[in-house]
Structures are given as C-alpha cells and as structure tokens.
C-alpha cells in the first residue's frame, strides 16, 4: 500500500513584495494506511504549512504551491478542482488544529457545530444528526455527553474542546487525520489523555494519522515512523526506534540532545 498517500517534490514558496522564500521543499514522503506518521520540527520549519497544503487551505497569497504532487488514493490533491477537494475535506481527510481555544466558533453550542457538519455532509434530519452527534461525543470519551451538547465552547476546558474538535473532524468518516500540534496549549496530563484518545481512535476506526508536533518525545510515543523536518526539508526518515537509537543528521542529534532522554511519559 505504498501509494495510499504520497508527497512528491513538493515546493511551497511564500512570496511577498520584498522576497520569495521557500518554506517547504519535500522530495518524498509516503504514508502507509493505518499507521501513525510523525513529523517533527522546530517552529518555522514548515510543518503547519505542509499540513494546510494537503487540504489546500493555505492562504494564497502569500503562499504559492510551486510544484509537486500530493497523491491520495491515486488522485493528485493539488490538481483537483475546488468542488472536488471540497468532497475530500472532512469526508476523507480531516484536520485538527493547534489551538483548541479558538478552533470552535464561539457563538454556537458544541452540539450545533457537530450537528451542522453532520447534517451538511450526511444529509440527515435533525433527530438522526443529534443521535450521531451524541455518538461522536461518546466516541471521544467525554463524560456526560448529553449535557456537553448544549454547552458553548467557552464553558469547556482546553482538553474537552480538543476532544470535541476531534469528534467534529471524525464525524464525517475521515480516514486520514492530520493532527497539527493537537496538544500544544494543553498541560501534560491532558496531553497524555488526548494522545491516548487519538491512539485508541486510530485502532478502533482504522484511520491513518499524520501527527505533526515539535515535541520529539511525543512523536516517539505515538508514531510508527517519523520524519524530521528542518527548514522545510526532510532531513531524516525512519521508524521511531531507528531515529531514537541512531540518528545520522546533526540536527536530529541536537534535538535528541535537548530532549531529556531518560524521561518516560506514560500513557
């Protein structure tokens, strides 16, 4: 299944009046169905740009995709028409974002937001959509699912919000989940909970996860394979164990040096 998801020669530039800056330059990256693939890199290395380019939600200008292919199940996502990519967003590839505080719309209740997505994509009536929404909230293991439906985002904690966001992202049957630093603004115990949830969901639903983070420890815990991104280029790829034991690139070694190696995060 090497042709499930593949990025080839992707080049993304940021073009402003002053300069043209190459932010992503990836030769090859492929995902196997059902795995968790970690992309790790410092801030500014182009992780989020890469993630957004997959669903084509990069603000353009300033970002321009110069060349390359993003193949998903035999289709080149970069060549699809807006209507076709619309059908992929949410239904086949879904994404969760860095900041759970601002990803939910503050003027609607959680239930309205989940049901909105479900009703729009699955064409269900109100009652079925409500059942589906409840099911999704139970799936992400939020206690008291019924009451959560009626809450506004500001009434939930960061971890709860991130769970809701995962629920929304998966509510239309996406099989590839792009998680763009999903645990960034959460404290360590909540982080562990979210990671555990993503891992469990992956097993239950058989989805593929593209996990993007700047935390090397997290990547080793959740991912089967890891790519290290540095200044827009992939400097190293391998299984978590390989990278941990014997990394070849000086940047990876530097990163590993910073992470306290003996520390173990239990999930």
């Amino acid at each position: 299944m090497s042709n499930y998801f593949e990025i080839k020669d992707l080049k993304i530039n940021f073009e402003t009046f002053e300069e043209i800056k190459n932010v992503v330059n990836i030769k090859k990256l492929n995902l196997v169905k059902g795995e968790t693939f970690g992309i790790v890199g410092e801030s500014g290395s182009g992780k989020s740009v890469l993630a957004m380019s997959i669903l084509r939600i990069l603000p353009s200008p300033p970002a321009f995709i110069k060349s390359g292919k993003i193949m998903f199940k035999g289709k080149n996502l970069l060549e699809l028409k807006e209507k076709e990519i619309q059908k992929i967003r949410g239904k086949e590839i879904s994404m969760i974002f860095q900041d759970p505080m601002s990803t939910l719309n503050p003027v609607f209740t959680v239930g309205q937001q989940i049901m909105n997505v479900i009703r729009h994509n699955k064409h269900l009536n109100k009652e079925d959509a409500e059942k589906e929404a409840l099911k999704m909230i139970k799936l992400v293991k939020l206690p008291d699912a019924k009451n959560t439906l009626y809450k506004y985002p500001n009434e939930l904690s960061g971890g709860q919000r991130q769970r809701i966001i995962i629920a929304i992202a998966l509510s239309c049957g996406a099989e590839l989940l792009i998680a763009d630093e999903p645990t960034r603004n959460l404290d360590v115990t909540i982080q562990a909970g979210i990671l555990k949830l993503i891992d469990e969901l992956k097993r239950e639903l058989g989805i593929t996860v593209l996990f993007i983070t700047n935390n090397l420890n997290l990547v080793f815990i959740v991912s089967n394979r890891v790519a290290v991104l540095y200044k827009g280029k992939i400097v190293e790829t391998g299984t978590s164990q390989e990278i941990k034991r014997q990394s070849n690139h000086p940047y990876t070694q530097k990163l590993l040096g910073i992470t306290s190696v003996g520390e173990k995060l239990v999930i």
Partner: protein
Amino acid sequence: MLNRRTNYYEILIKQKLKVLKENLYLFKKNKLTFAALIIILFLFIIAIIAPIIAPFPSHIHGAVNPKDKLLPPSKTYLFGTDELGRDLFSLVLYGTRISLSGAIIAVAAGFLIGVPLGLIAGFYSGFIDELIMRIVDMFLSFPPLLLAMVIAAFLGPSLQNAIIALIISWWPWYTRLIRGQIISIKEREFVRAALAIGTPSWQIMFKHMLPNCISPVIVQASLDLGGIILTLASLSFLGLGAQAPTPEWGLMINTSRTYFIKAWWYGVFPGIAMFISVLCFNLLGDGLREILDPKTKKN
C-alpha cells in the same frame, strides 16, 4: 410516550430565552435606554393606529377647513391648526407613520444590500474586494445628505424617491463596517477549521462569520434609524421628499416658516415629535452597544 427525550432544540430555545432575560435585565438596569425603548414602542403603536386615533382623519388626506385656519392649541385642536385649517395633532400623529416606516425601509434595505456585499468583499480578498470597496469609496466620498439630495433631485421629488435616494447613499457604510469585522475574524482558527472540514464558503460566510460580527452593525443600524428620520425630514424640508398634502414632519416645518411669527405651534410640534424620535433611537443605539459589546460597558 411518557418518558420522551427532551428535544435538543427545546433546550436550546430555553437557553436562548435565558440569555434574552439577562439582556432584558441589562436593559432595565440602564434606565435611559429602557425609557427610550418604551417610547419607541409607543411611537410604533402610534404609527400603526394613527388613522384610528387621529381626531380628524379626513385632514390627513388633504381635506381643508379654511374657517379654522392657524388657530392656537385648544381643546378641539390639541396642537392648533395650520394655514388650511387642518388639525396639526392628527397630522403629527400620521407623520410618525411616514417617518418611522421610511426610516425602517431605508435601514433594512441598506442593511440587506450592504451586509452581503461587505461579507463577500471581506471573505474573498483580491479583485472582488478591490472592486466592491472602490465602489463603496466612491459613494462614501460624498456627504450622505448631499448624495441623497442629488439622487432625489435626479429621480424627481416624492417620498418614495427620497427613500430610494437614502438607501443608495446609506448602504456603503454597512459594507465598510462589516468588511472590517470579517477581515478581523477571517484569520481565526475556527474559520480555517470549518474550511478543513469541508464547509462550503457561503456557509462559512453566513453561518460562521456573520453571527460573530453582526453586533456592531446592528448598533450602527439602530443609531442610523434616528439619522435617517432626520435626513428624510431634511429632504422633505428642502422640497425633495414628500409633497403636500402629505403630513411629513420636515415638510410641515418647511411650510410653517412663513407663519412662524403668528403661529409658533405650527413648526414647534412636528419639531418636538422629530426630536423625541431621533433622541430615542440614539439612546437605544447606545444602550444596545453596551449590551452587545461588553467592552464599552461603563461601571
């Protein structure tokens, strides 16, 4: 079914009612706004039932009574009479209907034209944005009253044309206001998240962005109601709006100028009516701003 599950929407409505109650409480706490709201409701009732409660309904439609001309306020003629012997009280009551309906039509139409255009301009930056905003700039470069005057003069003087002129000169303000709001929330994560989940653009615009940025526009619209009443009266005063014998406040004040020394009541009562309605709409707008935008709340 005895143990029927409470419907999602029932609970939602209950929640909304709770919010409404809180807002009503805020309204009541702010006495001036509450008073303005009451007076405005009162004005609306007058506007609706004006032909019924007016003591001389025939005067509204141009019936004249020359033997009672320019009488001072008395028991029969509460506000006195004009130069044709018409009862000013009836005319002022009926004028409420004309002014309020004119203002509401103008604001609503301006709102319906301006808001979607602003949404589109803010959402699709680039050429469409440039195009819409340059047109808006063109309209905004004239003072609204002057532009309305030119358009009204071009269309020919009548009440309908004056309202059309007001709509044309008023919508750009809403477009500019809402575009600024849209641009400020466009970069928020939830918009991007909605896009990533496959929400179509129109739904993002109207369902996600609009509710997040509508409140300043509502405040502006309620403040504008007062301004529009005034501008409509100005147009009539200048002879570009309502024509005799329509009992429009501005027109009445214009005709009263000739008789001002002999009959002070002729100009004063329509003026007071106008003053009260404009003041109340402005107070209501200020109050709404305090409720909808808690940042401006005074402690």
